């Protein structure tokens, strides 16, 4: 940008500057004028679909959409006038007229962008009455529910699915009044190439996409005296759950989260960070074996269920490269119904396992047939997202902000800093490198901070020297970035020994089940995911124990129950397999 001349223009009588190519909206944002907007999303392409952000430009007959209209030198812009306010108001009312009038019972009541906009633009009366589109809700998916009647055709889901995730499962189908966002052939979500990542849920301004709620069945289980109900919490949720209770983004609230879960009635509160450590021990063993033989390299991580679905549909040829390790969630659920059941002398069929995850795809993972116990039940009985957890705590009257700090139950609750950083892109890689360093060199790692794999950039590559053994590592977040990385490997432009792939932007901190951000901020914002990631790195930095293999509870687990890392029992309980899935994605 340096060296390029700034454009001067006037917005509402205020002098504004814009770099060439900037839009009127960007120039207005820079001087503190927030033009109302709806379909706009700063991290997606510009669509100009909703026309809420119209402004008038002196000398032009009609208003223009400020999200897409470039600022020009000498331009005189008005962002507000009786005419503009009336037009915006009418646009919003026309959207409302084609929308169910069920705000009070809607999932997004209180944090719906359309609702907020209608209020702020002063839609207090209804002047229009017209035909309304009618569609059934698509409840076929175990993770993502599609409700086309709530869709306002802003196209954010279509854009995120294509531009960020490279899945392109959603597109606008049919024409005019019949226009609807749907998968190919109007197929149900369950039969589509959807990978359940939930980013459509994250960017949807209304409730056209929501997660499938599991809270009712969890509340039922908590009331059932015949069940021992245990819960685990993913690494990334402690960095985000506070946002639901007024904490600024990036505030870790681990202790309050544990106390809240106990108050909600869970019989055991365990930490997925523990099995994150376990994953590292298993995966490092697997990696070193492959490094020795040179087979099935690069090893690709398998923690992200969105990535696993993506691989099975879009990159089935990479299935042999994926780590056979179950995800930390599935390892934990398996141990709860085997190891923990044995320790507590409980009937595993009477243990009900709940996972609080930043992720909608975890609901899909829980239902995979590979993750069923020999007696037929799933190892993970229910998955709730961070959002569902926040709702449930509020529903049960938990005054989160004022809670004292609690600690996780033992022995599935102790973890290292390496487990904590799993929730940020590059975290699994860093955790793996800390352990691999010691396993390869036999010496303690002098600096545990592998900062070259930190940060929210979409693709990171580095060469790590393990005292003579050079390891080439690749890290990506957001599946379009994974495509970029994997296609370079396929073309022979890059070679890696190990690749970490997280489906969601920023890793799990940007997961499809994380809290809706406060008004005016956007869920894909790198600033938001950076703050959440920072919370995890601060947890790690504050811990004395920072490597997975040194976790004493992990060592005890191997000694008393699992045997050797990568051994027979570990394989039986902690590893899984994948298979190509139809319909096949087009990449």
């Amino acid at each position, binding site marked *: 940008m340096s060296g390029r001349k700034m454009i001067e223009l006037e917005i509402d009588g205020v002098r504004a500057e814009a770099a060439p190519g900037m839009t009127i909206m960007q120039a207005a944002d820079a001087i503190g004028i927030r033009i109302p907007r709806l379909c706009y999303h700063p991290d997606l392409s510009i669509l100009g679909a909703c026309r809420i952000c119209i402004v008038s430009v002196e000398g032009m007959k009609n208003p223009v959409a400020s999200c897409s209209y470039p600022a020009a030198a000498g331009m005189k812009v008005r962002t507000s006038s009786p005419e503009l306010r009336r037009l915006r108001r009418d646009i919003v009312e026309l959207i409302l007229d084609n929308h169910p009038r069920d705000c009070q019972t809607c999932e997004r009541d209180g944090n719906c962008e359309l609702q907020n906009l209608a209020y702020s633009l002063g839609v207090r009366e209804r002047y229009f009455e017209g035909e309304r589109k009618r569609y059934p809700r698509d409840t076929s998916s175990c993770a993502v529910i599609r409700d086309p009647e709530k869709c306002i055709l802003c196209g954010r889901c279509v854009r995120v699915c*294509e531009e960020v995730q490279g899945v*392109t*499962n*959603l*597109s*606008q*189908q*049919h*024409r005019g009044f019949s226009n609807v966002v*749907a*998968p*190919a*052939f*109007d197929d149900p979500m369950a039969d*589509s*190439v959807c990978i359940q990542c939930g980013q459509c849920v994250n960017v949807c301004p209304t409730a056209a996409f929501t997660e499938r709620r599991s809270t009712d069945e969890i509340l039922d289980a908590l009331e059932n005296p015949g069940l021992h109900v245990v819960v685990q919490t993913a690494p990334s949720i402690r960095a985000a759950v506070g946002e639901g209770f007024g904490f600024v983004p990036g505030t870790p609230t681990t202790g309050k989260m544990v106390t809240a879960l106990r108050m909600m009635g869970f019989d055991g509160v365990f930490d997925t960070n523990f099995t994150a450590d376990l994953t590292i021990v298993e995966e490092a063993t697997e990696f070193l074996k492959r490094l020795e033989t040179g087979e099935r390299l690069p090893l690709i991580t398998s923690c992200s269920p969105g990535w696993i679905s993506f691989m099975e549909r879009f990159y089935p040829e990479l299935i042999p490269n994926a780590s056979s390790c179950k995800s930390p969630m599935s390892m934990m659920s398996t141990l709860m119904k085997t190891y923990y059941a044995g320790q507590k002398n409980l009937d595993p069929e009477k243990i009900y396992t709940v996972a609080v995850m930043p992720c909608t795809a975890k609901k899909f993972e829980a239902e995979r047939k590979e993750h069923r116990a020999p007696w037929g039940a799933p190892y993970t009985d229910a998955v709730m997202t961070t959002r569902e957890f926040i709702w449930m705590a509020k529903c049960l009257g938990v005054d989160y902000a004022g809670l004292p700090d609690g600690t996780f139950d033992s022995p599935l609750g102790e973890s290292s800093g390496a487990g904590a950083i799993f929730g940020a892109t590059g975290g699994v890689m860093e955790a793996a490198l800390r352990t691999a360093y010691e396993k390869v060199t036999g010496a303690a790692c002098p600096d545990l901070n592998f900062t070259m794999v930190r940060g929210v950039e979409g693709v990171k590559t580095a060469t790590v020297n393990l005292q003579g053994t050079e390891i080439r590592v690749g890290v990506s977040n957001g599946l379009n970035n994974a495509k970029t990385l994997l296609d370079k490997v396929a073309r022979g432009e890059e070679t890696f020994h190990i690749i970490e792939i997280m489906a969601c932007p920023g890793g799990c901190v940007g997961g499809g089940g994380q809290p809706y951000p406060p008004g005016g901020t956007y869920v894909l914002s790198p600033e938001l995911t950076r703050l959440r990631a920072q919370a995890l790195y601060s947890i790690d930095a504050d811990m004395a124990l920072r490597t997975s293999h040194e976790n004493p509870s992990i060592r005890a687990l191997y000694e008393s129950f699992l045997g050797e890392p990568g051994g027979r029992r570990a394989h039986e309980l902690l590893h899984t397999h994948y298979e190509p899935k139809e*319909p*096949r*994605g*087009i*990449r």
Partner: protein
Amino acid sequence: MTDDIHALPQDIVEYIDRCLAGPHGESYLIPVLQQVQNRFGYLPRPLMDEVAHRMRIPTAKVTGVATFYHFFSFTPRGKHRVTVCMGTACFVRGAGKILDRLKDLLGVAEGETTADGLFTLESARCLGTCALAPVVVVDDALHGNVTTGDLEKILKPYGFKGKGETG
């Protein structure tokens, strides 16, 4: 006859390959879909999938384009297309009654195909032959100054056996 359409004909495959060899190959999606529709009378689902994979265009986008244009149909059409012009001139000269009579004779609604697969009934907006209004077109043959009494005679050469014996 329609259940065995599972693969694109060789010439359409070659056409796609030629399109993809040039710049902006994906922009030939509509001509490719037109070829499929012209060959089979509709867009069979397996072929849409094959077009998507061969052209490397996500299937949701292919169906997004195909559902936008009225020209494309996802359901098989009849062997013969019976089109009633509903343009202004034809309309004032009784095209509505013609269409109603055809619905009655064929036992189908507008846009539908008779059960024996012989006829698809459609309407059009002005075919530009207003001097002959009202106009009925069967495949490529145009019939002008049509009355409701002419319809059975018009359909007979195409295999129409009389009301109730079809559909």
